[in-house]
C-alpha cells in the first residue's frame, strides 16, 4: 500500500548489502576467535592436524574461488556494458567453479572420514588433547563456509536466470552487484581459512 513512496535506491541497497556482509564477517569471526585461542594453546597439535589436510585440495579450491571471484566481477562489468551473452557465460563459469569447489570439498571430507578423522572418532580420541579440537573447528568452519558457497551459488543461479530474461540489465545492475558482493565475501572467508587450516606447520 505504500508502494507509491518507494523509489529505487541503488546506493541504499548496496549499503544494506555491505552491512549484511559485516554481520557475516562477525559470524565467522566467532570461529576465528576460537581458532586463535586454541592455536595458542595447542600449537603442536594444530600443526599435526594441519599436516593431515591436503594442501593440493586446498590450493585447487583456493584457485577455483579466486577465479570465480574474478569472473563474477567481470560479469558485472559485462552487464554494465550491456554485453549480456558475455555476462551470462561468465556467471555460468562462476557457478561451475562453485560446483567444483563443493565436489572437491566432498572428496576431501570423504577422505578424512575414511582415515577415521571425524569428531569423536577412535583415532582422535586417542590423540593428545587439541587434535580433536582442531578437527572439530575444521569441520565446523569449512562446513559453514560450504553452506555459504551453496547459498551464494543459488543466489547467482537465480541472478543468471534474471539476466537471461532481461529482468536485470545494464540499466539496473543492482541485484547482480549485490550478489557479486556476497560471492566475494565467500571468497574472502576462504582466503583466511586456507592458510590457517591447510598450511600450518
Amino acid at each position: 500500500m505504500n508502494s507509491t513512496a518507494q523509489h529505487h535506491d541503488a546506493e541504499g541497497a548496496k549499503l544494506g548489502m555491505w552491512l549484511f556482509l559485516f554481520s557475516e564477517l562477525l559470524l565467522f569471526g566467532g570461529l576465528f576467535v576460537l581458532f586463535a585461542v586454541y592455536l595458542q594453546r595447542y600449537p603442536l597439535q594444530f600443526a599435526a592436524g594441519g599436516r593431515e589436510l591436503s594442501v593440493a585440495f586446498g590450493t585447487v579450491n583456493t584457485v577455483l574461488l579466486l577465479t570465480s571471484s574474478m569472473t563474477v566481477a567481470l560479469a558485472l562489468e559485462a552487464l554494465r556494458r550491456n554485453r549480456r551473452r558475455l555476462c551470462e557465460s561468465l556467471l555460468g563459469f562462476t557457478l561451475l567453479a562453485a560446483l567444483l569447489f563443493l565436489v572437491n570439498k566432498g572428496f576431501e571430507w570423504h577422505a578424512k572420514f575414511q582415515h577415521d578423522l571425524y569428531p569423536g572418532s577412535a583415532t582422535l580420541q586417542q590423540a593428545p588433547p587439541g587434535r580433536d579440537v582442531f578437527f572439530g573447528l575444521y569441520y565446523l568452519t569449512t562446513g559453514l563456509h560450504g553452506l555459504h558457497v551453496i547459498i551464494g551459488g543459488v543466489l547467482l543461479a537465480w541472478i543468471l536466470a534474471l539476466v537471461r530474461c532481461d529482468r536485470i540489465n545494464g540499466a539496473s545492475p543492482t541485484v547482480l552487484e549485490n550478489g557479486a558482493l556476497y560471492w566475494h565475501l565467500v571468497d574472502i572467508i576462504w582466503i583466511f581459512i586456507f592458510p590457517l587450516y591447510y598450511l600450518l606447520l
Partner: protein
Amino acid sequence: MGKVIRMGEFFRRGFLESTGEQPSLFEWIFSTDHKRIGLLYLYSISTFFAIGVTLGLLIRLELIAPGRTIVGPDTYNALFTLHGVVMIFLFIIPGIPAAFGNIMLPLQIGARDVAFPRLNLLSWWLYIIGAIMALSSLAGGGGPPDTGWTFYLPFSGETTTNVSLAVFAVFILGFSSILTGLNFITTIHRLRAPGMTWTRLPLFVWSLYATAWVQVLATPILGITLVLILAERILGLGLFDAARGGDPLMYQHLFWIYSHPAVYIMVLPAMGVISEIIPVFARRPIFGYKAIVASSIGIAAAGSLVWGHHMFVSGMSDTAILVFSLLTFIVAIPSAVKVFNWVATLYGGSIRLDAPMLYALTFLVLFSIGGLSGLVLGSAATDVHVHDTHFVVGHFHYVMFGGTAFAFFGALHYWFPKIFGRMFNEKRAAWAWGIMICGFNLLYFSMLLVGLRGMPRRYYDYLPQFAQLNRLATYGSWVLALGLLFMAVNLLIALRRGKHIGANPWEAATLEWTVDSPPPPENFAVLPTVTHGPYDLEQAGEP
C-alpha cells in the same frame, strides 16, 4: 492542550483503516507499511510480555516461603529459563526498536517508509516464527529447557530437555534482529528528509542508530555461539569439552561477547525515548544535544569491551578480571553524561506531569539505582561476594524493568495518541503508574537486600532466614502485576472509547507530530523540508 478535532475524515485516511482490497487479517500480516509492522510487533511483544510476567509471578509464588510451595526443582528450572528467554529475546531486545522504532523512525526523519519494507516484514515473520518455536519448547519432547537463558555449556550440551529447539528459536530471533538493524542504519543514511541534517536528528533516532550498529556487529556472535551449542548437541564436536581439550570458558566468552552488548541493545533505545519525552514535558530544549549523541555512540562502543565482567568468578585470569573491571567503570561515564543532561534539561523547566513524563522521571530514578548497584558488580572484589545472588537479579531488574520497560511504557503513553488518534484517561494512567512503582520497589529492593545477605539465585528453596524478605518481594510482585493490569486495561479502553485528539497533543517539535493522528498510510503527502532542530519547542504547536 490538543483541541478536539472532528476525526471522521482523519480516520478514513489513517493507516489503521482497511483499504478493503484483501481480507483484513492479510492486510496486516502481509503489509509492508512500517507503521503496521510496528503495530504487529507491539501487539506480539505485549502478548509475550504478558506470558513472561506470568512466568515471573509463578517464580515469585514458589519463593514466597522456603521449601516446595507450588513447583519442584525441575519445574522451577524450566520456569526461570523460559522467563529469561521470553523476556530477553521476545520482549526487551525487540521491544522499543522493533515496535516504536519501526513506527516512529521514518516519521521522525521525514521518510515514507524504511529503506527495505519487504525485509522489514520478513523480520517480523522471523520474529514470530522464532517466538512460536521458543514457546513450543515448553511442551513435548524432553520437557522445557532447564539451562537458564544463558544456555551455558557443558550442561546445555548434555541435558535431555528441549534445548536444541529453544536455541534454534533464538538463532532465528537473532537473524530478525540483525535484519532490523541493517534496515534502520540504511534508512537513517539514505532517507532523511531535506534539511534533516545529522545534528537535527531526534535523539530517539540517534539511539536507534547506535543500537542498530550493535545489532549488526554483535548479534552474529550470538548466532555462531548458538550454532556451536547445536554442534555440541547434535554432532558432539567437543569444542568446549575439557576432557577432549576444549575450554568451557570459551563458551562463556563467546556468549557474553554478544550478550553484554545486547544489554545496550535493550537500554539505548530506552534512553532515546527518555530524551524525547523530557524536553517536551519540561518545555525546554534538550540540554547538551551533542553530548547525548556522543554518549549514545560511546555506550555502544564501550559496551563491546566489558563482557568479561560476567565471568569474574569463572576462573578467568586475574589480568583479564583487572582489565574488564576497569573497562566496566568506563561505561558509567557516558551513562552518567546522559543522566546529567536530562536533569539539566529539567532544571528551570515548566514541568508537566503527564503520564509519559511520570514514566520518564521514574526511569531516571530506577535506572540510577540499577546503575549504581551495577558498580558493585563491576568492581571485581565486591562482585565475588554478591555474584550469583539475588543482588544480581535485583540489579538486572532495576536496569531492565525499571529502565527499559518503564521507558517502553513511557513510549507507549507518549505515542499512543499519535498511533491511535485517541487519548487515554490521564488519571487512571497516573494511578496505574503509582501502583506499579510501589510494587516494583517492594519486589526488587527486597531482592537487592536478600542478595546482599547471601541468598543465591536460581534455587527453588532457601534458608529460613531469607523468608521475610522473600515474602515481601512476592507481595510486591502482586502489586506490580496489578499496576500492569490496570495500565493495560486503561489503554485498551482508550483504544475504543478514548477522546479523539489532534495531530500534536503534547505540543512537541519532532516531525511525527506534524502529521495526522493516526498518520496517513504514506506518512507525508509532501516530503517535509526541515528548518529547525527537534526540540525547538516554540516552533511546535498545532499545525
